[in-house]
């Protein structure tokens, strides 16, 4: 499938999800080595009209692509790159379904311009995989049955990952406060909090990554 980077309609029309995903890594974006570190100088962009060239570091790979200044990181991840683990919920910074890590800290991708993500390390739920295995937080969500419909789960898992990076052994209250930016319409909160607790305990035993 030839990818048109300028398209703004939904991806995957007439294409199976797996087939669509399969094309992305090879064609749409180029992987290069030598990631810029956070805080490193980023190129100045002056008064662009239309599309702008940018480089985003996503899940440890650098991707060069053209974006419109108004495109959010969420839009670019899903609609331009086909990295669809990050979900669209409210699209107004309230529900947390689009949570990604930026330099290890949870952010709402729906409220982040793609151009503002330049020079930072972006991690999506796909980036939490340990090779072909689930990462420890993902695994803890499975073991605690911490979802029903699953739509909010990617955001919950990424938020939990960020919480545990900042606070490896949170109290129950700290877990509740740390997960406050993620809504679950199914109301699986009790299980979600248990999953975060389980992941924290697992890391305490040296089981985490």
């Amino acid at each position, binding site marked *: 499938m030839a990818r048109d980077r300028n398209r703004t309609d939904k991806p995957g029309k007439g294409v199976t999800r797996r087939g669509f995903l399969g094309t992305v890594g090879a064609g749409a974006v180029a992987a290069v080595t030598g990631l810029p570190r956070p805080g490193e100088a980023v190129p*100045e*962009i002056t008064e662009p009209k239309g599309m702008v060239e940018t480089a985003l570091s996503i899940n440890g790979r650098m991707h060069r692509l053209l974006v419109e200044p108004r495109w959010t990181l969420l*839009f670019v991840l899903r609609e331009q790159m086909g990295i669809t683990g990050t979900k669209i919920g409210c699209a107004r910074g309230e529900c947390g379904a689009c949570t990604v890590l930026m330099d290890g800290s949870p952010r709402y991708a729906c409220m982040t311009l793609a151009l503002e993500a330049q020079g930072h390390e972006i991690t999506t739920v796909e980036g939490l995989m340990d090779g072909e295995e689930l990462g420890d937080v993902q695994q803890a969500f499975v073991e605690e049955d911490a979802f029903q419909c699953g739509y909010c789960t990617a955001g919950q898992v990424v938020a939990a990952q960020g919480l545990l990076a900042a606070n490896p052994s949170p109290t129950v209250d700290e877990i509740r406060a740390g997960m406050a930016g993620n809504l679950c319409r199914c109301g699986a909160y009790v299980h979600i909090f248990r999953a975060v607790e389980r992941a924290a305990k697992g890391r305490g035993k040296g089981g985490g990554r």
Partner: protein
Amino acid sequence: MLPKFTYSRPGSLVQVANLAARPGTRVHAGGTDLLGCLRDGVFGAESLVSLSGLSDLRGVTPTSGGGLRIGALTTIAEIAANDAISDRYPALAQAAASVASPQLRNQGTIGGNLCQKPRCWYYRGDFHCLRKGGDTCYAFDGENQYHCILGGDGCYIVHPSDTAPALAALGARVTAVSAGGRRTIAVEKLHVPPSTDPQRETALEPGEILTEVILPPPPSGLRSSYRKIRERASWDFAVVGVALALVFDGHTVTTANIFLSGAAPVPWRARQAEEVLNGSNLDGATVERAAHAAVADAEPLAHNAYKVPLFAGLIKEQLTTLGGGT
């Protein structure tokens, strides 16, 4: 999808200020409020000028005078977690910790928090209200359970910031830089009441960039706190909130600074309560009088009279907490 705009990220403050002075340009700091306003069509923007290329505007550093300088791009999360702020200016740390959600605290900046737009649902919604250049406040006769009980004058918003009342109580100032130079503004004077101009929130002129917050050295005997009450236990804006900065000499309050959130279109200085407290001991009767003095002039709308006793109770609680052990 956001409306189209051009974007620039200059590496120098002068360039930012020059670009920001152009009509149709908006300044992007953390972006959490800006993108929401653009998406909802509260206002438009032909171009955005981003501050994120200005690394000098990040971080918390001591000033030569014994205070703290907080760069305008310092995130709310960084402020909430900063030891020097927690130790010396707890009201600010508590206010920062109570802002929005973890994700928004990681993204939102102190400069943006001070300059944010009101959350009034008529202002944010499809109403051409007074604040947006119309001739009516739809909240006045409408759904006004979250609107102001003090300081309303044609427009009845509440100022949404938690950090602004804390900074005002602590006597903080901000620096505003433009192509023409720089000036400092007390946080207390930064916000514009509707009686002065219902269509602006801050005293910043077009092209003026808020670059830093300067906290004065804490006076000996300072105790400060911020607490807000919201409709739910997880994140939300303040229904009512109070920032206290009291200077004690032994058991006596020598100087009281009290600013309310959720009360008025600007962070509201509770002068009558301060007058009750200045020179007094925080005994039960004084606390009671101060709490009621804070809302003595309240003029509730049809659906927000509940805020009056809620403020009185909150102020009483916080004064009692701060006075503990004196």
